């Protein structure tokens, strides 16, 4: 209840952020909107083209074969999915289907019904033929989409409803929290475009599940898959086919990708509010350099970004011209930064320092989290919230009763003394006899050499720890080495970050002990039989009322064990030119919906009242 009240209050206030100074934006909300500007400026372009900043190109724009973040972002406008993420309300919503699925009591069957409105570019409607092909194309062992397959692995069967042409049921292998969500934002495929000879109709999902099925022995499927996987379907504009409102006009390698709005697209007359798209063109402009990006905002070359550095956005916000031309803000995201400690060191390559929970807690008392946040976000640090556990404070699963561990050198000293770490030789560094050897409380603090502020953050932490006789040695590492060391547990302490989303989370990858044993992402070695049982229960409990208390129990276990020192949730740096109205920024990726940005002062079709 307290949460709901806070969110409502936050939304009310956030609707008019221009009434107060930006430094006072202390609200931790999942979305933030700005009022349309009353007056336009003569310097503003009248073109209904939105230029969006991106720091890298997508690996490709294939609807299913690819993994990069920019690809997913651009595909949002080219394609549509059966269900989509409502960025504002942080929930899934029906997109190409009439409603969210009806779920049977076992949690294994999910029934959907297709909408009648969606049309492909050739004018043909979306049919069950497309839906059946879509699932088979993703599950076919020869299609080059391991990431998509990961999500679709739990699907056993797609059952058509013979009595109702647009109705179908997904039958899952196991009850799993992501059964309802795995389809969100996965681009739908047109069968007649991607499989004109209807090759996949000869095969079933059961065939693809069968370990004895050898697709290489079926010439037709081999040839079809080779064509489907061909990179031209992810690179040549005329070969990229989607049901969304935009199509790719041009891809200038390393420079930009230009999307152009389709004429008379079916969403222009959609019955659903919020489905209409406004900019005639969206240009994804690549700019890797932060200073150069800042200059492109000064010259109004760029209209929007969510990737400018915090430092440069803070600089720009001091510039009256920038504030006159752009709406901008810092908004929370599901991305968080942490310090992980190796709970299970081998004692040979890595000293047995952090196998003691008291030492880990002492490290938490020695980490200057507030100073780090101040370092990264300066005067906007009030907008940034500390993480206390593994769950974002934006989520309803977040346990508010767990308080952040403050910077307290004295408490750390007490804990370290009690754990037997004392400066016996007077060199200023604590030590302890471990396995017959005098071991100093000195360790490596690994961080990514390429990550912006991490060097300063590591230095700040090391400096603070030294006050308690703890010597952290910051070690910058190249990304390959960094990941390999983490995965092989060849580290003492490391600074890392994870991305998440608003959807329910499976905690296996990060917190199940199996993910430590098998080289997964449980880098710290957290976990025991009790926590593993909770992690397993969480992922198969579909009832939110039962699941949330379990997630809170897991948070408490992690909090008490302190495998990570959670630092902060990153703030998204959101900017949109004021010549575009309906400005709204979101915590969920990509942070902004470009198609909703409506050019101010230009009459659009939905401005005309029927009266």
């Amino acid at each position, binding site marked *: 209840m307290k949460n709901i009240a806070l969110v409502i209050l936050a939304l009310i206030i956030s609707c008019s952020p221009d009434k107060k100074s930006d430094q006072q934006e202390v609200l931790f909300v999942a979305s933030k909107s700005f009022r349309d500007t009353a007056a336009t400026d003569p310097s503003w372009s009248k073109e209904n083209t939105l230029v969006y900043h991106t720091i890298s190109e997508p690996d490709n724009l294939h609807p299913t074969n690819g993994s990069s973040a920019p690809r997913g972002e651009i595909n949002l406008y080219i394609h549509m999915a059966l269900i989509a993420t409502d960025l504002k309300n942080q929930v899934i919503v029906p997109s190409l289907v009439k409603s969210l699925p009806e779920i049977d009591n076992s949690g294994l069957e999910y029934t959907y019904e297709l909408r009648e409105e969606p049309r492909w570019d050739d004018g043909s409607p979306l049919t069950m033929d497309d839906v059946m092909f879509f699932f088979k194309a993703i599950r076919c062992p020869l299609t080059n989409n391991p990431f998509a397959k990961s999500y679709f692995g739990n699907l056993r069967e797609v059952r058509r409803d013979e009595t109702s042409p647009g109705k179908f049921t997904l039958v899952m292998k196991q009850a799993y929290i992501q059964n309802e969500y795995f389809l969100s934002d996965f681009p739908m495929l047109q069968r007649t475009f991607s499989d004109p000879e209807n090759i996949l109709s000869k095969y079933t999902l059961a065939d693809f599940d069968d370990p004895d099925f050898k697709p290489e022995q079926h010439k037709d499927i081999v040839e079809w898959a080779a064509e489907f996987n061909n990179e031209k379907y992810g690179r040549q504009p005329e070969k990229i086919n989607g049901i969304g409102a935009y199509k790719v006009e041009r891809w200038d390698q390393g420079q930009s990708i230009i999307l152009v709005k389709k004429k008379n697209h079916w969403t222009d007359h959609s019955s659903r509010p919020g489905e209409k798209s406004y900019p005639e063109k969206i240009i994804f402009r690549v700019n890797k350099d932060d200073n150069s990006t800042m200059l*492109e905002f000064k010259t109004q070359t760029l209209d929007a970004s969510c990737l400018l550095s915090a430092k440069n956005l803070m600089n720009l916000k001091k510039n009256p011209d920038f504030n006159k031309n752009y709406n901008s803000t810092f908004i929370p995201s599901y991305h968080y930064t942490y310090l992980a400690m190796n709970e299970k060191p081998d004692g040979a390559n890595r000293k047995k320092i952090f196998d003691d929970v008291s030492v880990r807690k002492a490290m938490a008392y020695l980490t200057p989290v507030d100073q780090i946040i101040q370092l990264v976000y300066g005067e906007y640090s009030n907008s940034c919230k500390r993480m206390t556990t593994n769950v974002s404070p934006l989520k309803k699963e977040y346990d508010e009763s767990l308080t952040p561990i403050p910077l307290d050198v004295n408490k750390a000293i007490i804990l370290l003394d009690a754990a037997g770490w004392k400066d016996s030789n007077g060199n200023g560094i604590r030590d302890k006899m471990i396995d017959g050897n005098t071991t100093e409380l000195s360790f490596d603090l690994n961080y990514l050499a390429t990550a912006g502020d991490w060097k300063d953050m590591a230095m700040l932490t090391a400096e603070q720890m030294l006050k308690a006789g703890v010597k952290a040695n910051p070690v910058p590492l190249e990304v390959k080495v960094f990941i390999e060391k983490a995965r092989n547990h060849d580290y003492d302490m490391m600074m890392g970050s994870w991305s998440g989303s608003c959807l329910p989370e499976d905690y296996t990858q990060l917190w199940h002990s199996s993910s430590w044993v098998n080289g997964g992402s449980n880098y710290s070695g957290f976990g025991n039989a009790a926590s593993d049982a909770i992690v397993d229960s969480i992922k198969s409990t579909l009832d939110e009322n039962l699941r949330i208390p379990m997630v809170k129990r897991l948070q408490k276990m992690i909090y008490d064990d302190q495998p990570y020192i959670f630092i902060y949730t990153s703030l998204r740096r959101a900017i949109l030119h004021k010549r575009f109205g309906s400005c709204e920024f979101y915590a969920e990726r990509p942070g902004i919906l470009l198609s909703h940005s409506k050019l101010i002062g230009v009459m659009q079709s939905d401005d005309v009242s029927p009266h």
Partner: protein
Amino acid sequence: MRSYLLRRILFFIPTLLVISLASFVILINSPGDPVERMMQAGGTGELIPSSLLKNQRAEIRHRLGLDLPVFYFDIHSVNDEGLAKYIPAISFHLTNQFHRWLFGDGINSKGIVRGDFGSSYLSQQPVSGLISDRIGWSLFFTLTSIIFAYLISVPLGIKAAANKNSAFDKSSSTILFILYSLPAFWVATLLLMTFANPDVLHIFPASGVKPVAGYPADANFFQRLYLSIPHLILPTICYTYSSLTFLSRLMRNAMFEILDSDFIRTARAKGLNEEKVLWKHALKNSLFPVITVFAHVFPAIIGGSVIIESIFTIPGMGNAIYQSITTQDYPVVVAVFTITGLLTAIGYLVSDILYAWVDPRISFSK
């Protein structure tokens, strides 16, 4: 001359094989795992449920051939009978990564011996296409900057040498020394902040090599060049200034040594004017070091510059190479190494020919 050239060109083949083998071995043994990098979901750190990821690593590894042994051969006896069992024989097997790299997998790639470098692990784009898309801009900037650097540095070096210890020599030396010590990223950022900044001077665009919306569809080459020129000036300055400073110092020192030679003294004693002494007699003889440097220019064509390309958002080879190395995109890296080796060999061949041109005493007959 012709047989010498043929010999040198034939020598390229084993050289390239050795380069490809060396680069392959280095990459295979470098830390990290390309599959793990691919599983990082495009570097976003996004969490994909591990329970659903069970077979995906294995699937990618199999598709890329990374589940094969790097090399596969065995040593055995020639024969099991008699003394022959003490004679070792080596059998090479084809199911290994290096063989696949050389000769392809029979389905998706033909192997480098047939001119097919395969496809990028990350973008699935054919490596040849990836390189041809990007090499144009690297080539443009490298060649343009070299032409400018030579056009400026040669006269500058000659003038400084001809007027040794003059005010011009001292001031040019100081300026060039300062320029040489400035790092490229600093100069690039300084140029941007000065000439692409509405708060100071807004003369050039801050990023890219063409207008934001690209070229008009019907624009011809010259119209495209005209539209791109404002984008190209600042990066060209960055590409040029360091080689300019280096070359002019090289030219000055070489020319200075030549001007001290007996034959120059003789030329002067004969009463030739200084212009003729400098440009006809001294210049040709002082070009040796400059020609040597020219041999290194060829590989730079494919190398590009990571820093300048990143700052000015140039779609060149530098960034592509950097990204492929950090993501362990083996096909791209080995292709680049091999092409760089080829260009280096060509560079040395060209410089050998130029040596013979400037000095007739050098002969190719032996």
